[in-house]
């Protein structure tokens, strides 16, 4: 429940759609996904120490929830919070990138 509440400000920020990410920044974000996320989730995102992040694996996850996980991590696991490094819009961009929305 607390997670859902925490999600609210983000939902308000990101609805109805995420702000545009500049093309050069998008390229950097894609690089982060493949290389840095890839160090735990695999370069092809099929999983490793972290769970698979393939489009199939994320079919039932909603983008807002994923963005929140990216931003704040998953306590008690190895998933770190990326909020110090990326903005909320950028997390949303990554979530949609992963889901290929």
């Amino acid at each position: 429940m607390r997670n859902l509440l925490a999600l609210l400000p983000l939902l308000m920020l990101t609805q109805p759609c995420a702000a545009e990410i500049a093309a050069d920044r998008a390229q950097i974000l894609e690089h982060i996904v493949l290389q840095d996320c890839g160090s735990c989730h695999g370069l092809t995102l099929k999983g490793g120490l972290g769970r698979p992040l393939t489009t199939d694996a994320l079919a039932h996850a909603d983008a807002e929830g994923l963005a929140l996980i990216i931003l704040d991590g998953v306590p008690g696991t190895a998933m770190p919070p990326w909020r110090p490094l990326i903005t909320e819009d950028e997390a949303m961009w990554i979530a949609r990138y992963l889901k290929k929305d």
Partner: protein
Amino acid sequence: MKRLVFAAMTVSLLALPALVLPALAQDPCCATGDLGLVVERATGSLLVIDRSDRASIGRIEGLGDLSHASLTYSPDERFAFVFGRDGGLTKVDMLTRSIVGRIMQAGNSIGGAISDDGRLIAVSNYEPGGVKVFDADTLALVADIPGNSKTIGLVDVPGHRFAWSTWDSGEAFMADFSGTDPVVTKLGDVGKNPFDAVLTDDGHTYLIGLFGEKGVTAIDLWDANPTPVRFLKDYGKTKDDLPVYKMPHLQGWAFTQGQYVLPAVGQHELLWVNRDTLQEVARTPMHGQPVFIIAQPGSPYVWVNFATPLNDTVQVVDSRTHRVVKTLTPGKAVLHMEFAPRGAEVWISARDDNKLVIYDTRTWQVLGEVASDSPSGIFFTARAHRTGL
């Protein structure tokens, strides 16, 4: 006498028909002692490097997903066994620079090791979890040791043995291949979420780093009945610690000046632990979250690289004073460092600058650079003779 033999050889070489020489020149080079392989993670290729020439001399392609790939060498330093993230186990020939065997042995794997006699290759797998052991000549399956957990920290132990730990269930195991049939023994419960483990180069102590709780676990493998011992009980990550953007690797845990040097997890620090008492003796504040800590052979120094986003930097620390003596910025996304076996130089991979940078370890001057496509791990063939790999 030597001179006579040499003179005779020179004469016989000169006497060779001229047409033989081009054939000789086309032959692959005949020794691999100063060669190495660099994992090019994005393209699934290996760059073959010559340490003496400070140059790349070839590329082997078609190895699949090489993110987090590692490799080990046959005792004759001719073959490398490459452990791919996608579960691929590939045997490559350094001389012909080609793939001589490749199997998909699991869905997802993390690393492996070769037995002390060079006959067995063990692979540690995430999905499905467990360890598989293969014949080094044929890559035929020798043993399948399934588990319900991701395996980490697989090491070779003298006496045709391997040890490993399990991320989900927090156990350590030993498999003994010295008899007719392998014997698998549980070494004990080692703690929550071990993230990596390493064997000291004397084969004495198997050290296991924990992510899920505090402390480090040591297992004395010289003991007839090895049992896990917890030390550094306040070591590890707490809720308030900094985010860890890349898991530290323990293969680089340096053992120097009678100490273990450990990466603090969630702190930008190195921890120095007295090897005998297992008590912390010092901490060194560092540039970022340490990933690899590697001892420079024949010296009191250790070299350290860092997790993203502070990964353009390498620091050198004196194990006597525990102080940083040099900070270098080799390039963007420094992923690995490999020393020449006697320590004179170090090769550093800068993934996002697509290059390897070679430093003189005494002067810290750049000796050269070698272009490489998204390089990660660097492996010189001298690893063939190191216990634990």
